[in-house]
């Protein structure tokens, strides 16, 4: 998965979870929880949605790596094999 694809996926998923929130307002290194006012249930739904779209298992110990947009992009790029 390319960084651009990863960003699009994360933004799409966040939009589903928090339709009112503006993902563009969140800095790349700001935590999504703070920037988008996500609670633990929202974050779980975020992880579940990423799992469902990518097939990644995403163990709980990896959650901190998904807490920023930039971290999430890197995680998906590293974890999801390139298409084709």
């Amino acid at each position, binding site marked *: 998965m390319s960084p651009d694809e990863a960003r699009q996926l994360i933004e799409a998923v966040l939009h589903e979870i928090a339709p009112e929130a503006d993902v563009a307002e969140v800095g790349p290194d700001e935590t999504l929880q703070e920037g988008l*006012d996500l609670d633990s*249930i929202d974050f*779980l739904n975020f992880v*579940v949605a990423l799992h469902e779209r990518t097939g990644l298992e995403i163990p709980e110990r990896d959650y901190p790596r998904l807490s920023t947009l930039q971290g999430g992009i890197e995680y998906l790029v590293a974890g999801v094999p390139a298409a084709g």
Partner: protein
Amino acid sequence: MPSLGADMDAGTVSKWMVAPGDAVRRGDIVAVVETEKSTIEVEIFESGTIEDIVVPEGERVPVGTVLATVRAPQVPPAPPAGERPRSRTQRAAGAPSTAPEPAVPSSAPDVTAAATGPDGAVASRRPLVVSPVVRHLAAELGVDLDTVAGTGGGGLVTRADVEHAARPGSRRRSSPRARRLGEEFGVDLTSLVGTGPGGAVTGDDVRRAASAGAGGAAARAHPTTRTVPAATAPESGAPSTEERQLAMRHAIGALMARSKREIPHYYLRTVVDMSRAAAWLEQANLERPVTGRLVMPVLMLKAVALAVAEVPEMNGFMVGDRFEPSTAAHVGVAVSLRTGGVIAPAIHDVGTLGLDDVMTRLRDLVVRARGGVLRSSEMSDPTITVTNLGDLGVDEVFGVIYPPQVALVGFGRVAERPWATGGLLGVRRCVSVTLSADHRASDGHRGGIFLATIDRLLQRPEEL
């Protein structure tokens, strides 16, 4: 129109999911209702066949109004209209749609028609069912049960129905002349103290109020819990986001003001060591797929539900000045909405559910609360509420009790704290648990036992 929470006075039928002739089963969703706070799917209490839709889509009506009539399965279909002697139910149900009252806007409820419906929000032809406690309350508050529309299961008249009926404004009778004058002078009848028979608002009452000026002495003499000024009440259709936010602030403000005015709160706090619970949760989640993982609030909700079984004074409702404990633990979960506002729908029977089931329901509830679609049973019957502001990094929260409930449990952030035990100082993951409770139902001693019970339960997460 069922009462979907203590802060609801009226609702707008935004969509009917059934039509006359449709067979329905208890629990089916028959209509979608808009309130100030949410869009709510109304479940039917009876099985049978829909006979008549009384309140059309887009109409706003007060709590207690008959929305539709349903024919019980064992009752044969009524003969064609015109040949049959019309029952009281049918007349009452038919009145709003057949009586020509074009002068009354839908936001000014025709309270007389609403009050004469002898049955439930979805009326059936069953005898009036009332529990002794509710009967007692009605006697105490001077409410004639025959005039109260039951919104409970089987057309049961609930405590909330009686309170609604007793509340100034929500079900006050008024004469046709009073309503006509009210409209003419721009006087909100629901704000008046009636001097007629049974407290009915008379034409003279309206004239007096009109001469005293809008918001004059007569209107102020009797504080009401009506929340939505006519200006923000949608005439029909879905309200705009802004209108809804404003209406929600009014609804929350009115309910919380009522809570602070009526409930003698006391507050307790205890710090609970969460090391075991957190370690257990991590281990439990290792074995679970992404989609089945638990979050800490699930353990907290379950612990609260089990603790109320040991300290029942925290779980139930104030009925008049008497506490009525609930045998079931329907835990209200305070869900903050991103557009502003908070809503606290219930997860039913949390004490009897496994943690995985609590998790599934919590996820579902939060998503639907934020998406703005909840079910009527979730809104009407939480017996205690839990609020968790820990996700935002708040250390502790001293909540305001949702009337007519008697307790609210607050959880703050789970964080590492210095922890002294056995003469040694260590670092443990801890959470501050607070209790706001109603002094009419319990005292600090029992509240303390309740918090200690929650603590004890959270030390044995594997048994939750």
